[in-house]
């Protein structure tokens, strides 16, 4: 299959990066809505000052520009702090990011990042400062000069705008939260997937035979036959095997084949299977279960009849409901080989944990010695503790034979899940931040609302409101905002989580449980955040409240 180079490099990461970018955008939206709310609240306390300025001749444009300048300055200060944090974040991403993230090493903070921060800051300052500026500079400013004498309570438009911003915040936070929860659940599912082999107490290492004195196929076989008993004799080693490829590392080699003695499909429609050349103890060392038949033995050599062990995926597909043992596979190698199936083993995940099982054909290493060879050593204890001894044995036999990429089975599994873990970590972090921002936002609005409605609450108390009436009045407002925000957030999530489909494993982008849990969680936080100011409202002294200006 031919694919453009750029797609080959970033293809699998592109969707994840887009989703993370969208999450960052939503987070920025939440933060901006919060700041806009603060600006509105601050503006409301400055109505008198603005009214005096207007009375002294300032035009509405002039006042709006002044307020906008203030919000842009605030955004720039935030942007500067954000740029510093971003530089630190890049270092963190380089440390924590998955090795397969394209150009990870080249990522760094430079003048373009700074320019982006400045542009985004100015844009957000203007965009989110505009609504408060227009709101504050509009209306009857003259009333602001005289309103304190009328015993009035606060008007509707400012409250509506602030409430609208909180609804927006909650909606955006819920989208991020649902995305983060979906990824977390997907990651948990991923962790519970059996890769087909036992990754614990397993040491692996590449043993390249492509050059040097062991490059010739007979020498490869001879070297392995010499080194494996030495390694098996090391204290703490339970079994040793070798294979041309390891699970979760890549698809590696494949072969077209046909089941002999059955009508052969045309050459271009022949099925393909992954192939692995393995030594007799490979399956035991890897912890891959033998399902039927036998494993390879030392008697399966280049001079003995060709044999093969197949995995369950291939057995199910070509011998459904029947035993494949004794069946024969015509393998399109050069020259073609017909091998008898002597055993069936469990399927392993060849490339990714979330990937499908590929039909796999195992051949005895002696019959097909490959230049790419991996040692697998099952140990009794910590695998890396044996690394030096293993290296020593290989060097003792051939000081020039390289032994590279020593890693444990657990490291292989962790690397296979690194991308998913990284995405989950980042989106989880965004989810937590959005959760906190939404809580702060609703707390701020309800708190400000209580402060603004002190006199109204006093009036209501004088007219017979009990503390419970005050509580339900304040909480009711918060509940309405949260409900509206959650409804919008759910609708938004239904659309946006479709982008995440390729990042999810075992979880549907519209998983009801996830949506419900995130909505309930956010509603609980919104209620908790508004309960504190509501309690303050309940404890108001009606006399003081009535005198409040």
């Amino acid at each position, binding site marked *: 299959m031919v694919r453009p180079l750029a797609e080959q490099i970033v293809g699998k990461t592109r969707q994840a990066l887009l989703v993370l970018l969208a999450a960052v955008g939503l987070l920025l939206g939440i933060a901006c809505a919060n700041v806009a709310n603060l600006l509105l609240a601050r503006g409301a306390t400055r109505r008198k000052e603005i009214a005096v300025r207007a009375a002294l001749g300032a035009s509405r444009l002039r006042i709006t520009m002044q307020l906008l300048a203030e919000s842009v300055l605030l955004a720039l200060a935030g942007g500067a702090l954000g740029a510093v944090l971003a530089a630190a974040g890049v270092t963190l991403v380089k440390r924590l990011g998955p090795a397969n993230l394209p150009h990870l090493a080249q990522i760094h903070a430079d003048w373009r990042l700074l320019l982006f921060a400045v542009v985004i800051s100015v844009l957000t300052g203007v965009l989110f400062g505009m609504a408060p500026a227009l709101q504050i500079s509009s209306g009857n400013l003259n*009333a602001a000069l005289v309103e304190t*004498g*009328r*015993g*009035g*309570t*606060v*008007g*509707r438009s400012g*409250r509506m705008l602030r409430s609208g911003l909180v609804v927006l915040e909650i909606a955006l936070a819920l989208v991020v939260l649902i995305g983060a929860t979906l990824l977390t659940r997907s990651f948990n599912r991923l962790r519970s997937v059996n890769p087909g082999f036992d990754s614990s107490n397993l040491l692996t290492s590449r043993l390249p035979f492509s050059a040097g004195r062991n490059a010739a196929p007979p020498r490869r076989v001879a070297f392995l036959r010499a080194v494996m008993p030495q390694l098996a004799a090391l204290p703490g080693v339970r079994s040793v095997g070798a294979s041309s490829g390891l699970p979760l590392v890549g698809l590696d080699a494949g072969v077209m084949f046909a089941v002999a003695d059955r009508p052969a499909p045309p050459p271009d429609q022949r099925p393909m299977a992954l192939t692995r050349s393995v030594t007799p103890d490979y399956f035991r060392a890897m912890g891959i279960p033998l399902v039927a038949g036998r494993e390879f033995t030392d008697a399966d050599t280049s001079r003995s009849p060709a044999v093969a062990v197949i995995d369950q995926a291939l057995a199910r597909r070509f011998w459904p409901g029947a035993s494949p043992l004794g069946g024969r596979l015509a393998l399109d190698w050069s020259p073609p080989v017909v091998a008898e199936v002597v055993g069936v083993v469990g399927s392993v995940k060849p490339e990714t944990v979330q990937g499908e099982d590929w039909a796999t054909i195992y051949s005895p290493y002696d019959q097909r010695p490959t230049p790419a060879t991996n040692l697998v050593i099952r140990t009794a204890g910590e695998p890396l503790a044996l690394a030096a001894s293993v290296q020593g044995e290989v060097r003792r036999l051939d000081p020039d034979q390289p032994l590279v990429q020593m890693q444990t089975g657990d490291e292989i599994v962790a690397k296979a899940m690194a991308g998913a873990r990284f995405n989950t970590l980042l989106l989880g972090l965004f989810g937590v931040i959005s959760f906190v921002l939404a809580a702060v936002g609703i707390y701020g609005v309800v708190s400000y609302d209580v402060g603004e409605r002190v*006199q*109204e609450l*006093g*009036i*209501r*108390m*004088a*007219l*017979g*409101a*009990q*503390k419970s*009436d005050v509580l339900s009045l304040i909480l009711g407002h918060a509940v309405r905002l949260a409900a509206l925000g959650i409804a919008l957030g759910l609708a938004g999530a239904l659309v946006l989580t479709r982008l995440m489909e390729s990042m999810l494993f075992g979880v549907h982008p519209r998983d009801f449980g996830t949506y419900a849990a995130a909505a309930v969680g956010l509603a609980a936080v919104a209620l908790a955040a508004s309960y504190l100011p509501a309690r303050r409202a309940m404890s108001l002294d*009606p*006399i003081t409240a*009535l005198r409040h200006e």
Partner: protein
Amino acid sequence: MITLRNVEKFYEAGYGRTYVLRRINMEIKEGEFVTIMGPSGAGKSTLLSILGMLDAAWTGEFEFVGHQVHRMKPKDRVELNKKYIGFVFQSYHLIDNLTVYENLDIPLSYRNVKSSERAAIVCDSLDRFHIVGKRDLYPSQLSGGQQQLVAVARAVIASPKLILADEPTGNLHSSQGKEIMELFKKLNEEGTTIVQVTHSHDNAAYGHRVVNLADGWIV
């Protein structure tokens, strides 16, 4: 209806107690129209707040329509307020983000009156106070006199036995003030007990008797 015995209110200051009200003994019978007068700081509004159950931090005995208020819990005092008392304030204290109709509906909503009954009562009240045309207006769209008219309508909408009015004409010009006082007189004639705080002798003349306060004492 109301009996106060040795009612006192004070604040603890560093150097001792600062008294707002001292040894207030007072009796108000049902159907009376009582005026409380005195200079600023005499304790008039504080006394009115105590009578209206808005202020709980006082000592002494307070009996109200057979209830020992001084022995009641705050929640029960609010219930007493809801059942018997209507308030009129100098600054009207209408809620700005509610219409005239909604402002009138508030006291009923706190008295568990069914919504269908509430609508009928509010409409009656709008009719009675000749403010049907203002029902959908917000307080900021009304004059001071109209706002106080709505405030009085709100005070009496739940048919209270007692109306407490704190300088009800303080922010109104004389003709508007007279209109409100005539309204109080009419309500009193219909059986509602009224206690008003005022600086105006003209307004005091609408009542049956005057209680004078000075430095927290009845003089």
